[in-house]
C-alpha cells in the first residue's frame, strides 16, 4: 500500500493489506482471550519496550545516529514522574497534578534528548555510540550516588497512574490499551514523519551529510530536532514504564537495560518502524520463558548469543531476515512466471512483426 495515499485519507478499507488488518484486530482483541499475566507482563511490557526501541530505531534508521542514551531519556522521564508527582518513599514527591507531571516529564525528557543530541552530533559515526554510552553510564552512576534528589541506590516506589473516567489505569486491560494506543500512535507518527520533508532530509543527511550541507541544509539542527522528537517518544514510554513497574531505581537505567534496548532494536531490525516491536516481543517472550529452557541466571548469555548471531548473520535483524525470505519467494515466483511466459511465447507464433 502506498503510505502517501494512506495519510492523505484517500484509501479504502479494502485496499489495506490483509496482514495489517489481522494484526490490528488481533492486538485489539488480545486482552479478551488471554490472562492478565499475558495482557500486562507480556503485552503491555513488550509495547513499552518496543516504543523505547522505536525511538532508537528512528534515530539510527533514519538519522544514522545509534544513540544508546534512549533508555536514559526514558529513565529521566520516569524519575521526574516520581520526583514531581507522588511516591511512597518520602523523598521529594512534590505532589503536582498528574497531567502537569506527565507533560513536564515528557518535555524535560525531550529537552534532555536534544541536549544529548547537541553534544554528540558534532562528531560522527562511531563516536555517537561512545558518547551516548558514556552519558548513559554517567547518568546511572549519578542517580545511584545522588540521594538528595534521586534518592540514590533505593530509588522511588509507589508511582501510580491516576484514576480517570472511573478507570484505574494500572489494571491490566486499561493499561494494555493505553500502551497500545501510545505505541500505535508513535508508530504511525514515525511512519508519517519518515515521508515528510523533515524525514526525507534526515535520511538524506544520513546518506551524505556533506552534500546536504552544501545544498544549504542545517545538518546539525536537523539532527538535534531528530533527537528532540525521539526524546518525546522515549519520554512518553518512560512515563508508561514507571507506571508499569510502579517504581524506578538506578537498576532501571543500568547499562544492561541500556544494552537490552539496543539488542531489541537491532534484533528486530532498524530499517522499518515495525522492527523494534518485533524485537520487543521476542525479547519479552524469551525473558519470561527462557526460564523453562535454561537456568534463569544465564539469561544474559542467551540474549547475548542471540544478539551476536543476528549481528553476524543478519545485520538487518528479524525484519531483514523476513524481507530476504520474501524476496527469495518472489524471485522464484517471478522466475517461474518468466519461464511459463517464455514457453508460451515459444509455442505461439509471434505474429506482430509478420502482419502489421
Amino acid at each position: 500500500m502506498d503510505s502517501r495515499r494512506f495519510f492523505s485519507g484517500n484509501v479504502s478499507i479494502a485496499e489495506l493489506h490483509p496482514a495489517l488488518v489481522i494484526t490490528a484486530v488481533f492486538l485489539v482483541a488480545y486482552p479478551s482471550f488471554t490472562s492478565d499475566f499475558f495482557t500486562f507482563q507480556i503485552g503491555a511490557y513488550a509495547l513499552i519496550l518496543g516504543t523505547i526501541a522505536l525511538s532508537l530505531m528512528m534515530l539510527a534508521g533514519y538519522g544514522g545516529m545509534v544513540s544508546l542514551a534512549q533508555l536514559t531519556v526514558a529513565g529521566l522521564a520516569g524519575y521526574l514522574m516520581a520526583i514531581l508527582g507522588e511516591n511512597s518513599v518520602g523523598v521529594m514527591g512534590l505532589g503536582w497534578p498528574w497531567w502537569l507531571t506527565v507533560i513536564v516529564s515528557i518535555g524535560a525528557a525531550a529537552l534532555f534528548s536534544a541536549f544529548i543530541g547537541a553534544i554528540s552530533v558534532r562528531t560522527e559515526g562511531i563516536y555517537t555510540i561512545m558518547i551516548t554510552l558514556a552519558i548513559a553510564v554517567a547518568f546511572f552512576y549519578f542517580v545511584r550516588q545522588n540521594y538528595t534528589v534521586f534518592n540514590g541506590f533505593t530509588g522511588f516506589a509507589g508511582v501510580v497512574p491516576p484514576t480517570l473516567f472511573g478507570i484505574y489505569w494500572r489494571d491490566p486491560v486499561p493499561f494494555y490499551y493505553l500502551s497500545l494506543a501510545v505505541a500505535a500512535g508513535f508508530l504511525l507518527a514515525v511512519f508519517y514523519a519518515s515521508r515528510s520533508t523533515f524525514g526525507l532530509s534526515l535520511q538524506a543527511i544520513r546518506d551524505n551529510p556533506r552534500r546536504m550541507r552544501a545544498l544549504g541544509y542545517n545538518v546539525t539542527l536537523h539532527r538535534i530536532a531528530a533527537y528532540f522528537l525521539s526524546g518525546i517518544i522515549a519520554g512518553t514510554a518512560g512515563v508508561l514504564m514507571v507506571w508499569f513497574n510502579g517504581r524506578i531505581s538506578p537498576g532501571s537505567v543500568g547499562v544492561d537495560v541500556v544494552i537490552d534496548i539496543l539488542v531489541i532494536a537491532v534484533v528486530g531490525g532498524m530499517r522499518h518502524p515495525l522492527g523494534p516491536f518485533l524485537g520487543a516481543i521476542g525479547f519479552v517472550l524469551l525473558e519470561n520463558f527462557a526460564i523453562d529452557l535454561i537456568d534463569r541466571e544465564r539469561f544474559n548469555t542467551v540474549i547475548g548469543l542471540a544478539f551476536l548471531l543476528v549481528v553476524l548473520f543478519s545485520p538487518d535483524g528479524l525484519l531483514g531476515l523476513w524481507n530476504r525470505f520474501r524476496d527469495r519467494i518472489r524471485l522464484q515466483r517471478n522466475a517461474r512466471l518468466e519461464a511459463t511466459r517464455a514457453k508460451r511465447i515459444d509455442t505461439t507464433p509471434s505474429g506482430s512483426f509478420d502482419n502489421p
Partner: protein
Amino acid sequence: MRQFIERHTFWAIVILLAVAVFLWLIFAVWPEWLTDVMGRKKTFVNTLLNGLTLGGLYFLVASGFTLIFGLMRNVNLAHGSMYLLGAYIGYEVAEASGSWFLGLAVAFFAIAFSGVLMQVLVFRRMEGDDLRQTLVTIAISIIAADLMLAVWTGTTYQFQPPEWLFGAARLPVVSVIRSNGDAVYIVYPIYRLAVLGVAVAVGIGLWLFLNRTRIGMMIRAGVNDREMLAASGVNVQLVFALVFGIGAGLAGFAGVIGGTALSIAPGEDVRYLLASLIVVIVGGLGSVTGAAIGAVLIGLAEQFGLAYFPTYGVVLTFLIMVMVLALRPQGLMGGR
C-alpha cells in the same frame, strides 16, 4: 619551550603562577584561613594523590583502547570485560602459584591472546563495517560478563601484592605542625605510588615503541593510511593482530594492577569501560598522549568530586566531557 614563552608570554606567566601556587599548596603548611576554605590539607594532598594514581590506572586501561581504535577504527566495547577477565585470571594464577608477578604476566598474555583471537576470528571478517564491529563487541561483552558471573560469582576478590609493595610510605610533605612543634608528615600506601610509577613506565614504553621502533613506525603509518601501508609491502593483518594483542593485553595487565589497588567484582567491567570511553573522548581517540592527559584529568576530577561534593561527583567528570566536546569535538589531542 623558549619559543612558547616568547610567543605566548601572557599564558606562560599564567601557567608559571598556577604551577607555583600548586606547589605551594602541596609543600607549605596551610594557614588557618585556607583550612577554613578548603578543609584539611591532608584531605587535599591525599585526594590529589588518589586522583593521580587512579589516573594512572585509567591510562593503563585506556591506552590499549585508544591504540586499537587509532589503527583499526574499531571501538572495542568489550575492553572493560577484558580488564575484568584479566583481573580474574591473574587472581587465579597468583593464588595457585603464590606469585603475584606470575599472575600479572599470565593475565597480560592470556588477554593479549584473546584479543588476537577476536581480531582474527571476528573483526577480520567485517573490516570497514564500524557499526557492526562495535555491535559485535557489545554482544561479546554481554556474554563475557554473564559467563564471568557464572564462574567467579558475585564475590569480591582481593589480591595480595608482594610484601615489599605493601605498607605505607612517609612523604616529605608536612600536613600540619602540632602545637608542640612536631611536624606531621603525610603517609601514603606504597602500592598506589607503584601504580603511578608503572603507568608512567608503560606510557614511556609505549611512546618509545611507537616512535623509536620499526614496528611502531608501521603502526603510525597504518593510523594515517592503511591502504598505503599495505601497498608498500607490509602485512597489515599481522600488524593489526599485534596491536590488538598489545591493546587487549594492557587491559588484562591493568586488571591485575587495578584489582590489587582496589578490588575485583562484577560491574567493574562497566566502570572501566566508562572510564576508557570518557578518557579517550576527552583526550582524543587514537592518541596515546591524549589518553594520558585525559586519564589524569578524569582521575583527578573523580577523586576531587568524591571528596568535596560527594553526591554530585559524577557531574564533574561529565562536565569535563561536555566542555571538551563543545570546544574540541575531536578531543584535546585528537587529529583532524
